[in-house]
């Protein structure tokens, strides 16, 4: 099989070929490595490439599968890790100068699970410094570049992960999401990114940005692939104090059942009032598609959303300032300009501001839970704009220019406050050829419903089949 084909297969198809012995994990890993060699000079999606290690791991998988020890759908499949997941004996930089030589002595829990399932870890991926930003314009390792237009940002902070998956440099990747860091770059790079329920996937061994807002999730080219990854990643971990004891189910269960009878809400008061026209049209059209497939779509309202960005930035600012305090006092000059400024300003926050934000959060969770009694899922745009060019700080929307940071976080961060599962899937392209994402959010621990709706949309549309040409 040709490199081109091997690098565009879904995890589901690839694993079937491995299981049947029609393709070897070594062949597939080599194809990814060739693709990385060819394209990553342009994309800059990797911080550390694990060439020898991944080939050894693929060889091990090949032998195991041949001898009848097939471990499941991730066995022999290439997975990249955002460079904030601890990897034993392998540097974990957090995209920073501060940790450029940090070598953990154990794997993050979720990395242990992936390795246990036979996944081939192909490398550590570029990210916004310490995950504290959404452009992935990294001052220490260079910006990651959007595969659909190399002049544009990938979005972040899991930008390297999304660029690599989009361009076929690996079959799947891990990201983290504190205000949208899985979903934003997934939307801008045209891939699938799932932020599961808070506590569903362990954060043990993951560099934190904001303990109460951080989530870990999968990035893939297909909805089913994200579900397959979740089957390995999810579950209770006593080493993570926020880990949920809610039993992890089969996330592929009922994936093909369709959306007939599912109640879906569109919140027009917040999600559609500051938005690019083309993005709005594409997302509303996607809602129509789901309605046409049998979903009951209705308009709903949640006035408290207007406060959600202020609350999120207060909580993330306070927690990030606390985490970085010692390094920041000792080495402020080693932080990039934007992250440094964010941390400096975070010292403006008082303890009472943080507590007030957490109080609002409790109220917001309650209001959202009330709304979610009326609908099963919420449909929203993931980002209100297409990917801006690298270095652009402000973008005009509806005749007003706004900071890129605020715009990109606006529609995703509410679901970090509530901890609800939310996915971004491709739902169109702008006239400049840049991807648009549809966000689907569900009740806590109802990832299966979110995935089911996302899969129904994917199966009945063609957007996910487009791949960037580099």
């Amino acid at each position, binding site marked *: 099989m040709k490199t081109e084909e091997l690098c565009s297969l879904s995890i589901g198809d690839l694993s079937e070929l491995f299981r049947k012995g029609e393709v070897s994990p070594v062949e597939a890993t080599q194809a990814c490595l060739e693709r990385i060699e060819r394209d990553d000079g342009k994309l800059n999606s990797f911080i550390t490439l694990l060439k020898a290690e991944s080939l050894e791991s693929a060889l091990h998988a090949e032998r195991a599968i041949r001898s009848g020890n097939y471990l499941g759908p991730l066995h022999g499949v290439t997975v990249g890790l955002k460079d904030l997941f601890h990897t034993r004996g392998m540097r974990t930089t957090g995209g920073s100068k501060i940790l450029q030589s940090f070598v953990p002595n154990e794997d993050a829990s979720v990395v242990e699970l992936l390795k246990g399932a036979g996944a081939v870890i192909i490398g550590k991926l570029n990210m916004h410094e310490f995950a504290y930003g959404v452009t992935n314009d990294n001052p220490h390792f260079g910006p990651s570049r959007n595969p659909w237009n190399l002049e544009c940002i990938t979005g972040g902070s899991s930008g390297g992960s999304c660029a690599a998956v989009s361009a076929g440099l690996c079959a799947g990747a891990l990201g983290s999401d504190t205000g949208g860091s899985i979903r934003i770059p997934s939307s801008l790079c045209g891939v699938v990114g799932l932020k599961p329920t808070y506590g569903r996937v362990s954060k043990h061994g993951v560099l934190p940005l904001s303990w109460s807002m951080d989530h870990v999730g999968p990035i893939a080219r297909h909805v089913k692939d994200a579900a397959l990854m979740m089957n390995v990643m999810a579950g209770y971990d006593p080493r993570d104090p926020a880990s949920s004891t809610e039993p992890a189910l089969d996330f592929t269960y009922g994936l093909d059942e369709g959306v007939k009878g599912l109640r879906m809400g569109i919140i027009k008061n917040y999600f559609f009032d500051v938005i690019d026209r083309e993005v709005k049209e594409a997302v509303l059209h996607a809602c129509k598609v789901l309605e046409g497939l049998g979903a009951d779509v209705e308009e709903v309202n949640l006035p408290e959303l207007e406060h959600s960005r202020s609350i999120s930035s207060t909580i993330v600012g306070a927690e990030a300032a606390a985490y970085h305090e010692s390094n920041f006092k000792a080495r402020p000059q080693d932080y990039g300009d934007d992250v440094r400024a*964010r941390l*400096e300003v975070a010292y403006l*926050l008082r303890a009472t501001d943080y507590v007030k934000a957490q109080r609002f959060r409790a109220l917001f969770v309650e209001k959202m839970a009330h709304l979610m009694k009326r609908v099963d899922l919420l449909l929203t745009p993931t980002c209100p704009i297409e990917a801006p060019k690298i270095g652009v700080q402000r973008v005009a929307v509806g005749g007003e220019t706004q900071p890129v940071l605020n715009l990109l976080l606006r529609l995703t961060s509410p679901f970090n406050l509530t901890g609800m599962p939310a996915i971004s899937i491709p739902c169109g392209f702008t006239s400049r050829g840049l991807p648009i994402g549809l966000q689907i959010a569900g009740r806590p621990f109802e990832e299966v419903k979110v995935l089911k709706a996302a899969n129904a949309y994917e199966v009945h549309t063609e957007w996910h089949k487009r791949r960037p040409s580099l």
Partner: protein
Amino acid sequence: MAQPIENKIPLKAFKQVAELWGIILTDKRLEALTPRIQQTVADLARLDELELGDTEPAPIFQMKKQ
């Protein structure tokens, strides 16, 4: 020279608070930070608008049997 923001948080006071934390901000640096400070002050002002009643803060971590 940057002006105090809404007479609420004078930049000089912010500079002093930062110094208490061991963060030295030059006037130039402070000026560069002004848009972000303005955004944060606006965010905090929005917090003041909220009616929270008896709402308790959201717990960060789950409680577990010891």
